[in-house]
């Protein structure tokens, strides 16, 4: 595990927090967008297993994660104070694929990983900027990091379930509108129902569609074989080493719930 220190810990919405961790440049220089870290939550035995979070952004010798409170691990994480030491394993998993003409689609906390993608694309890295960012949430108050996202000068399309900001309805409706106009690849992260819908749309418009998947992880490094995603062709693939981003057509989304 690597060591770091909490440099910032900020509430971004009722349930979403931004956590900055200061560590060495040596460590951070290996991070690529789409990869994740596994962070040890408190120094005692409960929760036992470190939890995974995508790298949200990088700045000098700091990196950031953006996380939503779900259960006991994230609740415990939210008690971390600035200055406290944290242990983490990183970088883990495979980076996002390098795409050319594409849009990104985030549902809720699914926005987390795209921050770093935008940063990299912005700094003449091998990653290219997306043509647009589609970002949906339940309501306006749950849309986070808008200021940060707007820095990249990329068209931002917003949808909320209650219409309190942007389009009223699912973000997938907006994506479908976009694809009707022009075929573009999709890179999507968000709740399972959204991903299933995206996979349908991607299939319909015959565009390459990548989904960032989730599952409970133990080791995060290929040791335990616990993080399987079922494949359409039969058998399984391991999220922590082969993912978390997968081509939609290869995954057996039906059997996942």
């Amino acid at each position: 595990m690597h060591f770091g220190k909490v440099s910032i810990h900020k509430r971004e919405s009722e349930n979403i927090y931004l956590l900055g961790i200061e560590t060495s440049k040596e460590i951070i220089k290996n991070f690529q967008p789409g990869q994740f870290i596994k962070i040890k939550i408190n120094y005692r035995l409960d929760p036992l297993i470190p939890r995974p979070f995508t790298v949200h952004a990088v700045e000098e010798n700091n990196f950031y994660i953006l996380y939503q409170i779900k259960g006991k691990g994230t609740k415990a994480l939210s008690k971390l104070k600035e200055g406290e030491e944290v242990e983490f394993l990183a970088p883990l998993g495979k980076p996002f694929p390098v795409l050319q003409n594409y849009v990104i689609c985030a549902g809720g906390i699914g926005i987390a990983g795209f921050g770093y993608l935008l940063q990299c694309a912005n700094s003449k890295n091998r990653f290219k900027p997306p043509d647009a960012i589609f970002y949906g949430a339940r309501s306006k108050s749950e849309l986070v990091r808008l200021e940060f996202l707007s820095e990249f000068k990329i068209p931002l399309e917003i949808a909320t379930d209650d219409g309190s900001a942007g389009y009223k309805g699912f973000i997938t409706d907006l994506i479908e509108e976009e694809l009707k106009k022009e075929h573009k690849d999709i890179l999507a992260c968000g709740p399972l129902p959204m991903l299933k819908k995206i996979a349908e749309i991607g299939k319909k418009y015959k565009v390459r569609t990548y989904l960032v998947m989730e599952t409970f992880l133990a080791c995060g490094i290929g040791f335990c074989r616990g993080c399987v995603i079922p494949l359409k062709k039969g058998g399984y693939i391991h999220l922590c080493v082969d993912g978390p981003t997968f081509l939609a057509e290869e995954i057996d989304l039906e059997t996942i719930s």
Partner: protein
Amino acid sequence: MRLSVNLNGLKLKTPLMLASGTWGLGDNIDKFFTKEEVETYIGAFVTKGISVNPREGNPPPRLCETPCGLINSIGLENPGIKEFKAKYLPMLKIYNIPIVVNLHGEKIEEFLELVEALKEEEIEGIELNISCPNVKKGGISFSSDPKAVEDLVKEVRKSWDNFFAVKLSPVGAVFEIAEICQKQDVDAIVVANTYPALGVINLKPLKIIKGGLSGPAIKPLTLRLVYELSQRIDISIIGCGGIISGKDALEYLFCGARAFQIGTANLIDPRNVIKIIEELKTFEI
């Protein structure tokens, strides 16, 4: 304390063995340890359970965290003995430490086929998994059927001269099976595998996982088994269950184990191995 151990001929530089199924098959070791670290800290590798044919394992969910514990239901995903020998074994052989292959079979013939396949390899030991609670045939039935274990162990002992361990289930006829192992000249017993457990993934609709419980939660249970067994029989005991610190390991050693395996600790942090041995070293004995 002195770290080296000789388990009926199997020489370990440290009493720490990597438990089956919790560090892969050697494919990622070099990302977390230098060769020197492996050879300094790790007493022996125990591979993931290997079966005759490849197994793709159980459908998800395969894992569920519980208070201080982890339920797993991997279903013995493994590449099968042939690919293991061709692809993984050479990666393990890079390191100058003993390799113990954990064997899984559903019938005696399968175990014997595996042993046969390993004879031509330079392998220091085998460990029979008669305890995996996830696979209906094989695992569960052996651990509650001492006679079947006796037949199995007798046959395997006939055809395998190197180090031979049997890994017990913590439930079932534990004491009887341990005695059988002693009588049949098994070199060591591993006490123990995981405990049958159930985790609730979702309440409504109910989604559960049945699997084996490992981790700190089970330490007091397995420690009890190790202690009681060590009071009754003479065979070398390798303690395994919930060790995540040097102090945990010492508890096993003081309660009758001659070596120990760590499983879940590897999943929390692959470098826990080093922390544990460094902690043991500082202990005055």
